[in-house]
């Protein structure tokens, strides 16, 4: 497949491409409200139980959370550089950067999985195996409930993103983006960077808690 088909309701490919991007921004707005309402519930409880949340948050693995943020930020960079390569019609570079983006996404999931195993080992999994450490009361478990729901949903969105990027890579390998048609890259790039943005806020919710002495 060499280039896009102009759909009958559009006057030109540029209008079609801009419309697709606008559509993705609208979708991103809905995702802001989806994750945002979860964060809101978290804020309500954190404000109600500041000490419990600090105690529980102290046990989150900030090293792995930070490594994951570095991974995702870098993947946003590789994604936007891939789009840049497509616009300059550098097919090899495009393919390499797309694959690198997907690889970084998989690396994130790997680190996350390892982090989950550490969380489980320290008995931080609610309901199944939760250990109330000294000073803990029920709201401490609430912190971990949010941790698993939020990071689980984020990982699901990231997995979808990885699949989409790999599909783009397959199409790029067949030369689909070799003639200036890059609308799908732009649109998926927006989604990818948005998933990265969600992680920025989740990081702020989860990892900095309870580290200082005050």
């Amino acid at each position, binding site marked *: 497949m060499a280039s896009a088909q102009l759909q009958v309701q559009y006057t030109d490919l540029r209008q079609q491409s801009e419309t697709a*991007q*606008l559509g993705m*921004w*609208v979708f*991103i*707005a*809905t*995702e*802001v*409200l989806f994750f*945002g*309402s979860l964060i*809101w519930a978290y*804020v*309500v*409880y*954190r*404000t*109600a*139980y500041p000490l419990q949340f600090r105690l529980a948050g102290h046990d989150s693995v*900030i090293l792995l959370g*930070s490594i994951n*943020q*570095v991974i995702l*930020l*870098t993947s*946003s*960079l590789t*994604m*936007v*550089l891939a789009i*840049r*390569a497509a*616009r*300059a*019609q*550098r097919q090899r570079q495009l393919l390499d950067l797309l694959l690198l983006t997907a690889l970084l996404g998989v690396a994130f999931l790997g680190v996350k999985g390892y982090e989950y195993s550490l969380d489980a080992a320290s008995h931080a999994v609610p309901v199944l195996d939760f250990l109330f450490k000294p000073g803990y*009361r*029920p*709201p401490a478990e609430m912190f971990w409930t949010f941790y698993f729901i939020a990071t689980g949903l984020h990982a699901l969105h990231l997995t979808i993103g990885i699949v989409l990027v790999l599909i783009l890579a397959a199409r790029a390998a067949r030369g689909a983006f070799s003639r200036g048609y890059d609308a799908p890259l732009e649109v998926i*790039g*927006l989604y990818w*960077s*948005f998933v*990265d*943005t969600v992680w*920025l*806020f989740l*990081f*702020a*919710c989860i*990892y*900095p*808690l309870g*580290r*200082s*002495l*005050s």
Partner: protein
Amino acid sequence: MSAPAAEPVGPYVIAWLVLLLLLGVSVASAYLPIGAWHPVMSFGIAATQAAIVFLIFMRLRGRPSLKWVFAGAGFFWLFLLFAMSAVDYFTRSGYPLRP
């Protein structure tokens, strides 16, 4: 027919470096004894990082446009949810909640 020149890579790399720097500030400030300023720092830095991602990586920079409206609408509406339910939570007699 030659391919179009690639746009400069500078802004993207600089943005990436700034983002990593902000991550470092966020982690470092978590260990400082700043008390009630902790959430301000962490969420403030997250919001700054998000703005950089939106403006640079998601190419919102340039003239304010329809995309800006949609990009901002989600956050603004979220703020409404926060603000109006906060009125209840902060004026309720049973808050903080008692487990």
